[in-house]
């Protein structure tokens, strides 16, 4: 007798994802969607889509949503959460959106301890706009605006968001995860679930940084991109829990 072990989550709509073949955005979407269903908060949730490849995520998450100007997702989330404190509010942001143009909004939402969850997709590149350098791009990484590779003296070093946010008072949970193989996908799911659980319990600001991929702009096959995430991204962006108020 057959029992379903895995199928498309009810937390996702029927709309076809707009991501390129093999892009890890899709994997993270599934993890968030499954979490909202499993914690039974889908119908209380308001997703804040940012500007990046995930701009259309308001069409994909099967809940209410707002689409934010580039970098301002945490400001919208704050605006929503302060007037609807009983709802679940989360943002889904890329590294250009969060770490570059949106760093101020994100830091201050964190510092205020806004009771929201931030899903931060670090793929070391500006995917949507065609592969420009992100503050998270690796030293030596070739992008359309660092065509001879990123140089610390000229472009600065890759910015470490989780390390920086660990110093901020209002942060309740902060973990960096990856999705480059099934084991890490399972772990990423745990982290995301914990973050939303904390939000349910009104513990404060939670953020999960996902070391992700951009096969197209990395110029790799999806499979090679997963391997590169492990071999090159992870050493620069070590995985782990950076802050856990529950454990303190």
């Amino acid at each position, binding site marked *: 007798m057959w029992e379903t072990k895995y199928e498309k989550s009810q937390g996702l709509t029927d709309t076809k994802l*707009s*991501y*390129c*073949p093999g892009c890890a955005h899709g994997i993270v979407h599934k993890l968030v969607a499954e979490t909202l269903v499993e914690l039974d908060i889908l119908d209380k949730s308001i997703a804040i889509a940012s500007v990046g490849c995930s701009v259309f995520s308001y069409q994909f998450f099967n809940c209410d949503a707002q689409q934010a100007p580039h970098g301002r997702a945490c400001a919208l989330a704050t605006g929503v959460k302060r007037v609807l404190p009983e709802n679940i509010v989360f943002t889904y942001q890329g590294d250009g959106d969060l770490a570059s143009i949106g760093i101020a909004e994100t830091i201050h939402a964190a510092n205020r301890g806004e009771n929201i969850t931030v899903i931060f997709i670090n793929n070391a590149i500006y995917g949507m706009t065609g592969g420009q350098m992100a503050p998270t791009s690796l030293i030596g990484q070739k992008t359309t605006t660092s065509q001879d590779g990123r140089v610390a003296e000229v472009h600065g070093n890759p910015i470490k968001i989780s390390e920086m946010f660990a110093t901020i008072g209002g942060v309740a949970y902060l973990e960096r995860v990856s999705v480059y193989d099934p084991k890490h996908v399972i772990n990423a799911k745990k982290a995301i679930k914990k973050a939303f659980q904390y939000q349910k319990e009104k513990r404060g600001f939670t953020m999960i940084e996902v070391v992700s991929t951009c096969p197209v702009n990395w110029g790799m096959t999806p499979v090679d991109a997963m391997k590169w995430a492990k071999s090159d991204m992870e050493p620069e962006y070590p995985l782990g829990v950076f802050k856990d108020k529950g454990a303190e």
Partner: protein
Amino acid sequence: MDTKNIKVAGFGGQGVMMFGQVLAYSATKDNINGLWFPSYGPETRGGTANCSVIVSEDTINSPVFKNADHLVVFNLPSLDKFKDHVAKNGLVLYNSSLIDKDISIENALSIGVPINDIATELGNIKVANMVMMGAYLELTHLFSDETIEAIIKKFLGERKANLLDINKEAIEAGKAFIRKMEVKYA
């Protein structure tokens, strides 16, 4: 030669944009005016993409045209999208490998070329667009082999220089296919 408005359309990844750019570059090389512009629909990633090309001996005014003198389509959705916008006495070239029905468009000459099959025979599906290029040139005689070859060299650059021959073969195969059909246009 009078102004030609050309529309090229197909799946992303079928070499549609390159097909159009080769024409615009060739025009520039032959010291006439070339204009190219892309149009990515909402469905950019995967799905269909198309571009407009204008080649002319005079200065080009409107980059936008209603009806194409030449319509070159690489898949069925593209054909359906543009078949009602072909100019009188226009030319329609379509990829009969993916469009397996005979197409007839009034006041226009429409010809199917099985570019995928021909390219696969040549051993590289990626040059299907150059098979189409061959067929197109054989019918329109817009540019000389020298011009086209020079431009393609440029496109391939050092890194892919080794692919020049297969591209030339593809063009030749496209031309041969048309010659076999013994159709004439313009």
